[in-house]
């Protein structure tokens, strides 16, 4: 149909019967990456986004409408342990932590807007005034501090402003909740819950919590969470394993549920106030629902309905979206458990999700030198892959003639986490960035010795980068800064020269998070979190075109050699191929869009994080997510929903091999998982970086021990 449009079809090198061929796979498991535990989660109903803070201070934003894609993140900071996280005034995100500061995040520029000391010692809790409250003219933010004070802040359009203190309590305020009308608040402390009148700021009730735990009096009972309902009920969860219902008007205990032998650490209530979720230190999440006592009766009662055990460790934080229960904790998983009765159609929302790994690359690779650069929160590791001279058949493990070497351990200076890092394809440059500094190193290899030299005097504009990329010939460095601009830098032996800065489109402040450069160095593609992909001409230093915006964020980008086709993967698992020279989607892309992807392909629940190409086979695209990697052979027919997308069984005979090779375009392997990185080193060699979950669990603190035998 679009035949005349100028599709540049590359000559076919390999006939399909020659197959994908064999690969030697460097199976790397020494990337000792351990995600930080989850400390807080906050769900924003308006934008259907979830903010997650981790124990290292990292804050991540997940877009629940875009297939739970982690679309933004704010790097952590050693001194900035977040204890509370909340959305306020619509879409503004605040966090507070043990350093006593309240921080607002800039969700467009992806940096910290400001940090403000609350002067109350470490902050344990925070709550924003409810939406739609009649009494309040503007929005307010409450923080609960170590010194027992509850501080009220006014949210102004660009900052927050301290307004007043509530009556000081005698011990730290660990949890806070507003009455939905905004007239009262409940504050959980140690051994008691206070109810404050917002207008006067005085405590009107003090509800003492029973310290007894299974008949034994514990030292203290910590109120980990409170929730204030519109009817005046306060629900509290505490360290004695209790979920308690209080009447805030009289200050009396109404109901008590003992649900755990350990602490109940978190609570979240649905907007309709008909269900809530609590998380315990035993890793269990309980769902409570307001259910009619008998059919037809209007009398309703809170009933513990469903327990879920998706965590091994403490569930530090829970959230309640309209259709799902969200929990996270020390075991680093973010678990999204859909409420089946709320999910009407069987789609992404109906599946249980466990998000463990970040949706971005932490590994970069210097193909020629066979080097891998691993990014950790506070250091980088450089490894050289080993080698073998042996050959073998499918499934063999080859004897190593040389093992992998740990070449370098590069520790960052300062308390900030690394945002991004990259090693040049030639292996002689390493660049990384933290929130305030950009570092560039020159590496000299002298046999087995490595000489590391920092390139000093980085220009002032190079302060913080969201993404760094070297050109294929390692002569240019591309840096996406958080102001939306893209810097092009020429690298010379030991120094550099700033060539150009692509300024963001007027009127946009969105930061670019993903970069791709064409192997010939002529084209640079950059994508932000929501707008389309911009393609720049690096030779002429101007914007070449913009790929039409798509509903779902881009998860990976790459430009194919020779054809300069830009391959874009989106979080809804769609893959597009766009011809940069022709400024239009390629015929193949149109065909696959017309026919649609295989339903199993679309049902995968981790995003594609890396795309690469075979140097000799222009029809092949290699892409991977956390649980599979796939080589798409564009010359083969596309699978339809009736064909078997993935056949885990080895082929039985010669004709089966040929039949499978020619069956359809998607060649999938699930052998390596969880897969953090995969790339082609050369025509016949792949590198796969795996991070087995058991290795992560082994590095976590031991969970609460439960007796297995007897009671």
């Amino acid at each position, binding site marked *: *149909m679009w035949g005349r449009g100028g599709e540049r079809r590359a000559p076919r090198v390999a006939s399909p019967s020659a*197959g994908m*061929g064999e*690969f030697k796979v*460097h199976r790397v498991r020494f990337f000792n990456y351990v995600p930080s535990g989850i400390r807080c989660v906050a769900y924003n109903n308006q934008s259907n986004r979830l903010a997650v803070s981790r124990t290292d201070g990292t804050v991540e934003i997940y877009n629940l409408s875009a297939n739970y894609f982690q679309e933004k993140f704010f790097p952590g900071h050693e001194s900035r342990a977040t204890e509370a996280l909340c959305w306020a005034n619509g879409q503004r995100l605040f966090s507070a932590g043990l350093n006593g500061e309240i921080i607002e995040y800039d969700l467009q520029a992806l940096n910290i807007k400001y940090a403000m000391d609350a002067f109350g010692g470490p902050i344990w809790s925070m709550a924003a005034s409810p939406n739609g409250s009649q009494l309040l003219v503007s929005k307010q933010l409450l923080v609960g501090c170590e010194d027992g004070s509850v501080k009220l802040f006014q949210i102004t359009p660009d900052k927050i402003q301290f307004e007043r203190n509530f009556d000081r309590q005698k011990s730290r305020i660990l949890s806070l909740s507003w009455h939905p009308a905004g007239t009262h608040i409940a504050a959980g402390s140690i051994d008691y819950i206070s109810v404050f009148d917002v207008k006067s700021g005085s405590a009107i009730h003090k509800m003492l919590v029973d310290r007894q735990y299974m008949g034994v009096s514990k030292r203290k009972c910590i109120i980990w969470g409170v929730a204030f309902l519109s009817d005046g009920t306060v629900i509290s969860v505490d360290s004695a394993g209790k979920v308690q219902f209080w009447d805030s008007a009289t200050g009396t205990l109404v109901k008590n549920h003992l649900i755990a032998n350990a602490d109940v650490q978190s609570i979240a209530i649905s907007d309709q106030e008909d269900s809530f979720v609590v998380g315990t230190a035993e890793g269990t999440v309980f769902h409570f629902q307001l259910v009619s006592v008998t059919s037809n009766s209007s009398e309703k009662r809170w009933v513990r309905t469903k327990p879920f055990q998706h965590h091994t460790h403490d569930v530090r934080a829970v959230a309640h979206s309209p259709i799902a229960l969200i929990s996270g904790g020390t075991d680093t998983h973010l678990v999204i458990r859909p409420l089946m009765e709320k999910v*009407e*159609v069987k789609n992404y929302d109906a599946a249980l999700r466990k998000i463990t790994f970040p949706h971005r690359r932490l590994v970069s690779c210097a193909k020629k030198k066979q080097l891998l650069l691993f990014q950790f929160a506070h250091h980088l590791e450089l490894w050289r892959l080993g080698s073998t001279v042996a050959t073998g058949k499918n499934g063999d493990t080859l004897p190593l003639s040389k093992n992998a070497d740990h070449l370098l351990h590069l520790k960052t200076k300062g308390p900030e986490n690394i945002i991004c890092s990259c090693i040049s394809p030639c292996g002689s440059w390493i660049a990384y960035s933290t929130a305030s500094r950009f570092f560039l190193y020159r590496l000299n290899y002298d046999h087995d010795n490595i000489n590391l030299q920092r390139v000093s005097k980085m220009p002032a504009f190079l302060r913080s980068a969201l993404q760094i990329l070297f050109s294929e010939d390692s002569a240019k460095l591309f840096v996406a800064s958080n102001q939306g601009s893209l810097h092009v830098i020429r690298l010379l032996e030991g120094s550099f020269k700033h060539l150009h800065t692509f300024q963001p489109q007027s009127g946009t402040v969105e930061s670019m998070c993903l970069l791709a450069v064409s192997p010939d160095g002529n084209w640079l593609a950059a994508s932000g979190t929501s707008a389309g992909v911009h393609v720049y001409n690096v030779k002429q230093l101007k914007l070449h075109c913009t790929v039409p915006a798509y509903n779902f964020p881009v998860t990976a980008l790459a430009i194919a050699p020779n054809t300069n086709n830009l391959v874009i993967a989106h979080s809804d698992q769609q893959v597009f191929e766009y011809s940069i020279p022709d400024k239009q989607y390629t015929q193949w892309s149109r065909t696959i869009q017309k026919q649609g992807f295989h339903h199993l392909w679309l049902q995968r629940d981790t995003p594609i994080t890396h795309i690469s190409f075979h140097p000799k086979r222009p029809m092949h695209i290699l892409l991977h997510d956390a649980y599979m990697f796939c080589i798409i052979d564009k010359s083969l027919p596309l699978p339809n929903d009736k064909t078997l997308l993935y056949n885990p069984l080895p082929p039985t005979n010669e004709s089966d091999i040929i039949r499978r090779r020619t069956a359809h375009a998607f060649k999938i*392997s699930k052998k390596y998982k969880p897969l953090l990185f995969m790339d082609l080193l050369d025509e016949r060699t792949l590198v796969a970086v795996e991070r087995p979950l058991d290795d992560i669990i082994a590095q976590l603190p031991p969970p609460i021990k439960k007796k297995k035998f007897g009671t």
Partner: protein
Amino acid sequence: MAALEEGFTLTAVPLGSGPDGPLGVEQSDKTDQFLVTDSGRTVILYKVSDQKPLGSWSVKQGQIITCPAVCNFQTGEYIVVHDNKVLRIWSNEDVNLDKVFKATLSAEVYRIHSIQGTEPLVLFKEGAIRGLEALLAEPQQKIETVISDEEVIKWTKFFMVFRHPVLIFITEKHGNYFAYVQKFNSRILSKYTLLLGQEEKSAAQSFSASVYRKFISLMSLSSDGCVYETLIPIHPSDPEKNQKIVRSLLLKSVVSGSARSGVALTILDQDHVAVLGPPLSASKECLSIWNTKFQTLQASKELPQGTSGQLWYHGENLFMLHGKFLTVIPYKCEVSSLAGALGKLKHSQDPDIHAMTHFVNWETSQGYGLGSENSEQSKRIPNQFTEFQLRRRKIEASVQPEVPPSTQLLAAVQKDSEKHIEVELRKFLAVKRTPDFHTIIGDVVIGLLGRYKAEPSFYPRNCLMQLIQTCVLSYSLCPGLMEFALEKTDVQILQLCLQQFPDIPESVTCACLKIFLSIGDDSLQETDINMESVSDYTAIIQDGEIEEQTEILQNGFNPEEDNCENCAQELTEKPQAAAEESTSCPVTGKRAALLNAILHSAYSETFLLPHLKDIPAQHITLFLQYLYFLYLKCSENATMTLPGIHPPTLNQIMDWICLLLDANFTVVVMLPEAKRLLLSLYKFVKSQISICSELNKIEVSFRELQKLNQEKTNRELYSIEVLELF
């Protein structure tokens, strides 16, 4: 789910066209760029995403464009016809239309068609068709007349069918419609007469066509407001003959029948059509997307300023005149599933959603609450269908049941004979299950019980059994059922209920237990009880059943032996007897099956305990003996399970033993016949405790072993492997 997005006007300045609206909107060779021809003298090239014109060309004053400009996709040039006969071809660079290539033709042109992948075609008003190349080679060539006098071309469309161009045009003569299909690979022109069927009076107002497999699906919007579909074969069996084709009703009353003008129809994809025109009730004009597969309205947008009754679609945009502005409304049609088609209607009958209902819904699964809501819901869906009066005629007959079987069944329950009810019930059960199935079943049971109360001679046992076996009933759905069975001591129904109901109150469970323990063996003999759960050890029971049992009772009933040491001694003295005792079941097979049903039922200790106290001591002993027997059977094998299908589990047995002892300890302790039992239980518990403590001790060692094992498999941090992809 199809959706109309927010539209935008393409021109800030009103189009200089009259009330007739523009002549046409055509795609250019660049994506996102469209040629808009107004009915006067101007052709404008717009870039839609930018909402701005890229170029504009006009013919001279006095000349008038008679056919919308199109783009020749092979050369990138634009073609327009003015004054019916004068053809102009120009490219983007040209400024003045006067100075561009001109060809005067010998006949009047109706339309020029151009689509990607083939040369443009010129359709003359007389029905002749020429390729552009051939025509330009000899512009003055004679053009033949294809259609008869007074026959007027109403509508035309050009497709590619398997890479071959096919042109269809519709003509009208005295209210009769004809379709002509010209295929260019074979140069065959086929003529069809469109029969309007019964709706003689209605005149077709708008057409749209798409290719569907081997047919051209021609849809027409008639003046009665309905959409009709006509299937025209692409490869007719006898192309020469004038064939008659019948249209069938596709959608009823999508626009108001009284709307004389301003209606238009466009096929968007296989299942969706866009309709422009005033809907039934409202007088304002509307743009709506209908799903033809499920006959539902998917999206609708009001156009208060009126339209010209023209609708074009290209790619994902719908173009229409809204007031005086050319408006673009992007739309989206997703693959139609029933769930999507029903759109906002909840609880649609999609199979996927059905699967979802297996999850316990705490908010609605409570008996009536869900029931009434659901049945309303399911009634509402057909109502909505009739409301819109959109029923595909072909399927109309088959989907019109006079009375739903459920209502028939409920009526039958009230008055008919037992036999008749059974027949109705079977009929009802044969029909596919609706979401409100279980409430209907509940209603039927309540109806049956109500009737039994009114006329005690009426005992619909078979019906009840059948109803219970539908597996959808619960205690709360038919509260009277088990009381009724208890009253009748119908152990068979009780067993079924215990097996099926998830929510039996403990008092009822206990009442069942009492009956099961007290009912005479002879009356049990006659009943037909499901013996699945006792399959294997029935054989043993058959051997020495009752004698053994009495023997045990006699053994136990020995007033002299009333201290524990003696009892223990006796046990050691008579290992033979003990062994024998362990292999013989204290109750008959049928009773065992009933008791197993009790063991399987759910309960809560606190509520069950008080009721257990009411059971007479000898029944308690019997039950304990049976439980102990089961326990011994369990411990015979390593997996600690009983043979057979769905036997009681060890946990259930142990829990019940504990429960019985807790409830009746004081009584049991005083009973001499229970002494032996208690002693062996005591020994058993003691051994269990020691096992558990030992297990707890070695658990740490186990874990270390496991860790070592894991490390061995995960030792390899780096390896090079060979992988072949197939």
